[in-house]
């Protein structure tokens, strides 16, 4: 009995190893079926962990863009574009090995990631390899500031934090804010810092607290916010925690507004808020309806593709990160065209001169490598219909 069990277990392990091996073989064999040369673009995104849901939506944008425009003209030749997708599993520790994997796969350029901490970790690897990377929705300034090869499409946290602080103080008329971030998260703590700075600069009071990774019970935090008489709770946290905070705020009957950063702009968060008595505002890169042609196209694609629909959270709502993923892909194609070569070095030199109109606005880079953006969309959760309603475009002033 024992021996039989051992044999069975050994067999299972052997088979699973074989399965892994087979999978990577078949991936390599896929390239170049139409006879064209192939250019590889790396996708560096979380598909698992706290940011898995957001990363998957961002990849959807890139996959859809790849479906719309599967080829590119480089130096007079037509190339097939192949996306090399790796999972950086949300955390900086795993991000490094995922980044190294992309370097090994000989990609011409990298897109991603959702999440700043993991982008910074990957940036070190890309820097060493001289591989250009285009950050999508990572918003911490350190991603591009400390790294020559990193460019970015999103707006920055100092901007985002200031926009939200201004909105809370001037538009909502709130003088006390409660801010909550996860311990050890570069993204959370960066935004907490910029929001606090801006809000206190305007004359408001900030009560700041942290929670440890893996927390599920936010009831006491909401009670602390109520005890501090806070008019808003600003929680720039990942989707997973945003859902828990919305839930706890509703259960505790928090009367003020919840403020969220770009991570909150997700149909998972709106799902949690639907039917509950909570008010929430978020800043984001794109508002559904901003480009009807893109919206209609991607919705059709999502609905025709059950896997895509699952990855989008089971519906066809267009998240801002999906739009930015779409723009990232076309920015990469522009850079490849200008470079006239698939050599990462040439692409890196070409990136600063990219200029085109994407769905999230005009895309041009400044000398640090950040997209020139001066406006953020503010949306509010419509808890009856379960959709995000557009509030206004806020420029910083």
């Amino acid at each position, binding site marked *: 009995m024992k021996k039989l069990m051992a044999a069975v277990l050994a067999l299972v392990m052997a088979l699973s190893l074989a399965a892994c091996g087979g999978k990577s073989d078949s991936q390599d064999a896929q390239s170049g079926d139409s006879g064209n040369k192939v250019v590889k673009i790396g996708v560096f995104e979380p598909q698992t962990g706290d940011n898995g849901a957001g990363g998957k939506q961002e990849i959807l944008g890139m996959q859809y863009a790849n479906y719309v425009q599967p080829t590119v003209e480089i130096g007079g030749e037509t190339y097939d574009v192949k996306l090399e997708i790796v999972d950086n599993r949300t955390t900086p520790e795993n991000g490094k090995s995922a980044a190294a994997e992309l370097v090994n796969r000989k990609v011409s350029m990298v897109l991603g990631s959702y999440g700043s901490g993991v982008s910074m970790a990957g940036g070190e690897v890309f820097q060493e390899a001289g591989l250009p990377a285009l950050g999508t929705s990572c918003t911490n300034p350190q991603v591009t500031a400390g790294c020559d090869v990193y460019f970015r499409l999103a707006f920055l946290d100092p901007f985002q934090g200031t926009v939200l602080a201004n909105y809370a103080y001037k538009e909502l008329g709130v003088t006390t804010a409660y801010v909550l971030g996860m311990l050890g998260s570069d993204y959370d703590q960066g935004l907490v810092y910029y929001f606090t700075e801006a809000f206190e600069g305007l004359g408001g009071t900030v009560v700041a607290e942290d929670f440890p990774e893996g927390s*599920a019970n936010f009831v006491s935090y909401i009670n602390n916010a109520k005890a501090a008489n806070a008019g808003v709770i600003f929680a720039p946290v990942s989707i997973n925690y945003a*859902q828990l905070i919305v839930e706890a705020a509703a259960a505790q009957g928090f009367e003020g507004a919840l403020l969220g950063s770009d991570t909150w702009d997700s149909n998972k968060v709106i799902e*949690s808020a639907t039917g509950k008595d909570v008010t929430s505002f978020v800043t984001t890169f794109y508002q559904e309806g901003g480009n009807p042609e893109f919206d209609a196209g991607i919705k059709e694609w999502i609905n025709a593709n059950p896997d895509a629909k699952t990855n989008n959270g089971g519906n066809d709502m267009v998240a801002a990160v999906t739009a930015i993923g779409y723009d990232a892909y076309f920015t990469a194609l522009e850079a490849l065209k200008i470079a006239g070569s698939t050599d990462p070095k040439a692409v890196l030199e070409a990136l600063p001169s990219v200029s085109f109109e994407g769905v999230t606005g005009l895309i041009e880079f400044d000398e640090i490598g950040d997209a020139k953006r001066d406006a953020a969309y503010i949306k509010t959760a419509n808890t009856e219909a379960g959709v995000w309603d557009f509030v206004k475009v806020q420029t910083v002033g």
Partner: protein
Amino acid sequence: MQQILPYIINGISVGGQYALIAIGYTLVYGILRLINFAHGDVFMVAGLVMVYATTALPFYVALPLVLAATVLLGFTIERVAYKPLRTAPRMSVMISAIGVSYLIQNLAFYITGGVPQPVTRPIPWISENVIILGASTKRVTLVTPILTILLVVVLVYLINHTKIGMAMRAAAKDFETAQLMGIKINAVISMTFVIGSFLAAVGSMLYFTNYPSVAITSGGMPGLKAFVAAVFGGIGSIPGAVVGAFIIGLCEELIKGAGYTTFSDAFTFAILIVVLCVKPTGLFGEKVTDKV
């Protein structure tokens, strides 16, 4: 009073959830002298089963199904991973337990795709909001401690006044002699795992009524804290585990209420170290008498 009331209510509720998990640790330890590291993951699987079952089936089918599936999982783990090692050194069983824990987590990772699964249909009635003494909360917060105490009373009765309970006590006292006296030791151990998993499933249903998503790591923290609670109360003692769990839950929430949110987890684990240093057997722990 009005100020700290919400924290106390919440702390008692959290304590109740920990208690239901802690009993599973303490029961198994009492009989097998094994720390069942997979217990937190059994709790997580119960949550996942609940998410999947409630979306597909009506509640009166889904909830018993969650209980049955979790009990079956606990039973299977014992039969497959622990029973063949009954005569092996205790360390081997412990390592087997760690292996099972990772196996379950990774299987769940494979099934869920690593993305937290939202609880789309929470159990009605207990997930509604109520207001007690001016503090708003979910009804489950009130139900949890009551249900916990009720279940513990039933369990204590089971152990002190039934035949299987007597067998369990005998096995806990002296494993080998109990076997010689004709007690079917395997049945007793299976029963222990069945009870432990059942309580974890109940705990899981209450826990995930409060929190809207089940991640594969969801079992980690509650499991770890319940383990601390069990050690705090004296591992092997059921009342100890329950009292320990309520104390841990209350302290944790009150620390958050006092404004030291950053340290709420650090505090829990500091308690563990202090207890182990000062009173190695915990609050209600059995005194170790050396058999010369």
